[in-house]
């Protein structure tokens, strides 16, 4: 069955540390890839997305993600995290399915940044 795996459920970093959150999906065809973020007390919102072209995509707030097709991965990175990056991060994959397409979310990674 198609699935999305986020390897770390909880991550704790100090400010200025580098961040990499893993995301792997299980589907052999073409996919669209997203990272969503949920800040404390707020709605889920889009961080960045990949459809085609340059596999390195840049999003808001200094985040970027790299699509590696051979590894079925779409890892999220940020060179230097801030306390305000404390949030829950969800990887999502859109693939062809009933009704045209299907969205599958990973279980999420809770990031806590220590000031």
């Amino acid at each position, binding site marked *: 069955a198609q699935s999305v795996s986020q390897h770390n459920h909880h991550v704790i970093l100090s400010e200025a540390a580098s961040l990499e959150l893993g995301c792997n999906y299980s589907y052999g065809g073409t996919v*669209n890839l997203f990272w969503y973020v949920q800040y404390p007390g707020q709605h*889920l919102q889009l961080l960045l997305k990949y459809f085609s072209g340059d596999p390195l995509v840049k999003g808001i707030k200094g985040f970027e993600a790299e699509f590696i097709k051979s590894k079925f991965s779409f890892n999220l990175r940020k060179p230097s995290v801030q306390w305000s990056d404390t949030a829950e991060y969800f990887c999502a994959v859109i693939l062809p399915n009933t009704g045209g397409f299907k969205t599958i979310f990973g279980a*999420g990674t809770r990031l806590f940044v220590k000031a």
Partner: protein
Amino acid sequence: EAGVVQSPRYKIIEKKQPVAFWCNPISGHNTLYWYLQNLGQGPELLIRYENEEAVDDSQLPKDRFSAERLKGVDSTLKIQPAELGDSAVYLCASSLGIAGGEDEQFFGPGTRLTVL
């Protein structure tokens, strides 16, 4: 612009009671999604509408869950009767409706349901 509106924000009911959730998507968004989010998990799609048509309800437990999107705008998700295992956050999202699902989904605040 106004975001996706959901009500109520919180609901506590006893098992076997009915419950309904309401969603008003962003104006102009043709696609509407209902998701279920259990604690410690990501959102799981229950149903997706393109305008008033339910194009993917394969994950909706139809014995107790129902949904409607009359006139292709607002939507209501109902559970009857509710079970203890239905306790979760119910999220509504909307998007413009670009073919292939390439568009961003905008999420509402969710309704946190507790079944006692």
